[in-house]
């Protein structure tokens, strides 16, 4: 059987590279074209044409295309690659599972998340623009509350270096197309499927193909993309964050270090919310930056930790097609081994205990069902300075600490999501005025909670567009 070939998409043209990455999916060879960096740089010179193709279409129409694309992505048969073969939703979920280690159940739930982001695009855009009419993107200005408001795009494109850990992150770049900004994507090595399928769905729904650059490429090509686009998003570790921190046009999504903080008024009631905490830690296999990696409680740490450890330790690796599978396998077994060894090394530092060790059914690192897994791990730490207290790994991993409520905000550090279990008004205000929390859930909610009208990880509209002061009374548009 000839290989399925996923080509480079060069802003309207498909291109087969001689450099490829090869996979095997259910006995079917799969080749991915790899673009060299010079090829990307040449293509980026064509971006003004891509923007013009999007600007020629009314925003309302683009919203309709996105809603239609949502259905095609979730239910349609779309091109697998550059040939005639079509990929059904099941083909996609199974292949995604095999390449990324996500069980089928999580592959499908991620499809649901991405579909929701697309089908709720009106709410998403409205949330990002704080309710401005869509015609803003057609005319550049709208009248709001009697005031003329003018925004202009600060870039001709959005470059995105995607990760492979969870297909759900693709929902972040989707609104750019409706805002008439072309996208230039570098897929993660293990997940070229999701952005390619999304692009195919969007083209089939009506988006101009010139609006999409899809470049599986090397690190050098990734840098080319980041520095060749006016605005870019990169995902990665703390090292990635440090590398790109000096560049204002690059928005780096590093480690999330998301947390649950339980205030004095909820500290005795934790048993009622145990499942929410477990969900925050283990949902999506613990792979998301919005998974909780630390739980801070002002009292009753040990009883909470013990109950959490029992629940987490009961989550067992299951075959990838098992409907109840929660844990993801590691596409690269060496990574799992390295994480396991690192955890054991850091546990040698006094002040931390792996509480799940005594409850789980075997070692943390395990080969099962032909895959490599790390079993969930809960660490009880004495203080936030312990190296395991405020970190995260790509599997269900969390620390539990007892910290006085009054000291929590000062100690948590940069946190992508904080779910604050409290009704304390004064503390809520302190939380809302703190500078180290990106998304705040007030109440006993999972850190995984998504509200479409709220921006996730920065506001994409504000990243791409800038408001211009507009004065005078001669606006003639």
């Amino acid at each position, binding site marked *: 059987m000839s290989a399925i070939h996923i080509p480079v998409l060069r802003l309207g043209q498909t291109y087969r*590279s*001689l*450099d490829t990455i090869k996979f095997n999916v259910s006995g079917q060879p799969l080749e991915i074209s*790899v673009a*060299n960096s*010079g*090829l990307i*740089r*040449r293509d980026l*010179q064509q971006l003004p044409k891509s923007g013009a193709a999007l600007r020629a279409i009314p925003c309302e129409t683009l919203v309709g295309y996105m809603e239609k694309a949502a259905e095609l992505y979730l239910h349609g048969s779309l091109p697998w690659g550059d040939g005639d073969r079509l990929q059904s939703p099941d083909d996609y979920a199974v292949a995604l599972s095999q390449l990324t280690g996500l069980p089928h159940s999580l592959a499908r739930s991620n499809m649901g998340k991405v579909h929701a982001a697309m089908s709720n695009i009106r709410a998403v855009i409205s949330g990002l623009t704080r309710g401005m009419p869509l015609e803003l993107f057609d005319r550049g200005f709208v009248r709001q509350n009697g005031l003329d408001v003018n925004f202009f795009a600060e870039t001709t494109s959005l470059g995105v270096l995607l990760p492979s850990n969870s297909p759900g992150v693709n929902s972040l770049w989707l609104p750019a197309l409706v805002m008439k900004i072309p996208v230039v994507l570098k897929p993660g090595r293990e997940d070229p499927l999701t952005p390619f399928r999304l692009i195919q769905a969007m083209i089939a729904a009506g988006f101009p193909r010139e609006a999409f650059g899809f470049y599986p490429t090397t690190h*050098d090509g990734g*840098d080319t993309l980041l*520095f060749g686009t006016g605005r870019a998003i990169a995902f990665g570790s703390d090292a990635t964050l440090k*590398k790109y921190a*000096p*560049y204002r046009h690059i928005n780096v999504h590093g480690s999330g270090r998301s947390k649950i903080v339980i205030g004095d008024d909820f500290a005795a009631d934790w048993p009622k919310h145990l499942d929410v905490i477990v969900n925050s830690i283990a949902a999506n296999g613990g792979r998301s930056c919005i998974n909780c990696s630390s739980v801070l409680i002002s009292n009753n740490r040990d009883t909470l930790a013990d109950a959490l450890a029992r629940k987490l330790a009961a989550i067992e690796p299951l075959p990838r097609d098992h409907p109840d599978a929660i844990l993801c396998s590691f596409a690269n077994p060496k990574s799992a081994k390295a994480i396991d060894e690192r955890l054991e090394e850091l546990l040698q530092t006094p002040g931390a205990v792996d509480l799940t060790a005594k409850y789980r059914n075997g070692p943390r690192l395990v080969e099962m069902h032909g895959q490599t897994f790390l079993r969930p791990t809960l660490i009880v730490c004495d203080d936030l300075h312990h190296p395991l207290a405020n970190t995260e790994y790509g599997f269900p991993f969390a620390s539990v600490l007892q910290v006085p409520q009054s000291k929590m905000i000062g100690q948590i550090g940069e946190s992508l999501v904080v779910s604050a279990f409290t009704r304390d008004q004064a503390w809520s205000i302190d939380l809302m005025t703190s500078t180290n929390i990106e998304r705040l859930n007030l109440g006993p909610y999972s850190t995984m909670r998504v509200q479409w009208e709220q921006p996730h990880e920065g506001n994409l509209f504000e990243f791409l567009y800038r408001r211009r002061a507009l004065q005078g009374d001669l606006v003639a548009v």
Partner: protein
Amino acid sequence: MSSTLTPPQAQSALDTWTRKMIAWHFSPATGCDYWLKWAKTAGWDPRKEIKCFADIAKKFSHFDDDVLRTEQPERFVPKAYAKRPYNVFETGGTTGMPKQRVGWDDYKTDYEEYSDHYGPNFFPKGNWLMVGPTGPRRLRLAVEHLANYRGDSCYFVDLDPRFVKRLIGTGEMAMARKYQEHVIDQAATILRHRKITNMFTTPRLLENLAERMSLVKAGLKGVFVGGTTMTPQYVRFVVEEVLEGKINFAPTYGNTLMGLAISKKLTKADNYSLTYYAPQPRATLRIVNPDNPSELVNYGEYGRVELTTMTKEFFVPRFLERDEAIRRPPCSEFPWDGVGDVRPFQSLTKTIIEGVY
């Protein structure tokens, strides 16, 4: 101009040349201080024991190029050249004390042979432009000699690879990009204001330059590159897009120690995979098993590149390059082994700063 020898004849010529060069370098009348002193402590006499090229691999251990950093260059001056001042050439992107080799006419021999190989039409008559590392490198004189040998003149734009390496090493990517732009600005200016027909540069600079202008419209007819890894995809990109399928393209593999290996003419069957052939017998490339470098790998397999240079000016036996390549068989242009799809040694398992210029 292709070699007229058959592979057995080429092998025989290499063996004859080997005996001649060994006699030259290990004779007290003509050899250099470094190798003569080495022979005294080696416990064997190369002049007696080296009968053919294969004996080099059997008898000599791998040349440690660090001596080119630690020893004074004078120690490598053959007695026969003692009365002629020499050129000192340094290796490309080295930081710290550079490795240096002495030389007189080798670079002229290499580049005249290169010029003859391509004949008059591949690089049509006209001015040359070199954009790349000049400074203490052999390349700068070599490219000018190439132009002069063909009856032409050459313009130069310098790039200091050591500075680029330093910038990348310290994470100053923005400054590295600015420096690259500075180099390209100068090259673009020359191309716009002077009549340039042929160019030498590195692949990376070539593609950067083509992002500024159509090289075809700029009047270029022939381009000669060397310096970094070129995968088949990269070659295809350069041929089809950078050179728009209209400019002659001559990729080379070489360095200060070897000279210049020429790539065989690409055919459809090659699918843009390059194969280079050393300027044998003056230099010979073997592809050896990295775990047992006395053993050649099979044709079609990757191995480490081993260089032996034997000219009257310079002797380097069995130097293990920092590259790996596919061993390729002799071809109609070159009746000896070639090295294909060269890339940095162990590039699949470690991070390498390459392609900086």
